[in-house]
């Protein structure tokens, strides 16, 4: 069964360092997302990406964050200068069409990357 894959599963980084989280969405999907979940809190939307550009972003997704689809298969999230409060589980997700437009539009999530900023 097709799945969203994320690497690495766990990343430890020093405050102020740049990190890149990688995702391979399901191959025929067109919409890509990043969500994060701080320990003990809700899953929160960061950004959606469609047609090679950001479709929507939350207020969390400030200038320190960027996304890219460098080739036909990878989708990356870069955090330029990490802060302690960026420590969280980061989930990549993808969907075939825009969510909520009918059956088969659900988003599928990857296993997540646990980012620990020290």
């Amino acid at each position, binding site marked *: 069964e097709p799945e969203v894959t994320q690497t690495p599963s766990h990343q430890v980084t020093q405050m102020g360092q740049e990190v890149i989280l990688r995702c391979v969405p399901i191959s025929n999907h067109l919409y890509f997302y990043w969500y994060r979940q701080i320990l003990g809190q809700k899953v929160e*939307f960061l950004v959606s990406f469609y047609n090679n550009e950001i479709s929507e972003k939350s207020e969390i997704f400030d200038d320190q964050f960027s996304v890219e689809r460098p080739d036909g298969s990878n989708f990356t999230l870069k955090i330029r200068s990490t802060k302690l409060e960026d420590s969280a589980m980061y989930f990549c997700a993808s969907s075939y069409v825009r969510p*909520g437009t009918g059956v088969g539009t*659900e988003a599928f999530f990857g296993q997540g990357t646990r980012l620990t900023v020290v």
Partner: protein
Amino acid sequence: EDKVVQSPLSLVVHEGDTVTLNCSYEVTNFRSLLWYKQEKKAPTFLFMLTSSGIEKKSGRLSSILDKKELFSILNITATQTGDSAVYLCAVEAGDTDKLIFGTGTRLQVFP
């Protein structure tokens, strides 16, 4: 502000019990409600509900939506230890791509 609230926060049952998980929402221009199961890491998709009163069923799991009273329930019958997980409810609404998640219900099933 759009809001999704799940109850209970936590539930402990014995194998064979039936459980009902609740999700209520207050959003503008509701589109759909989704249930996910989160075991260790990834939320895995269970159901998407868009219409009131139509039960979605998969094995021992079923779910229904009430768009008038703005809630959904997820039922699990004859629970097994493998059902232990956090069950997440999420809503799609308005002209937005994002899922709005609730805090989840942590279900623990003991033998």
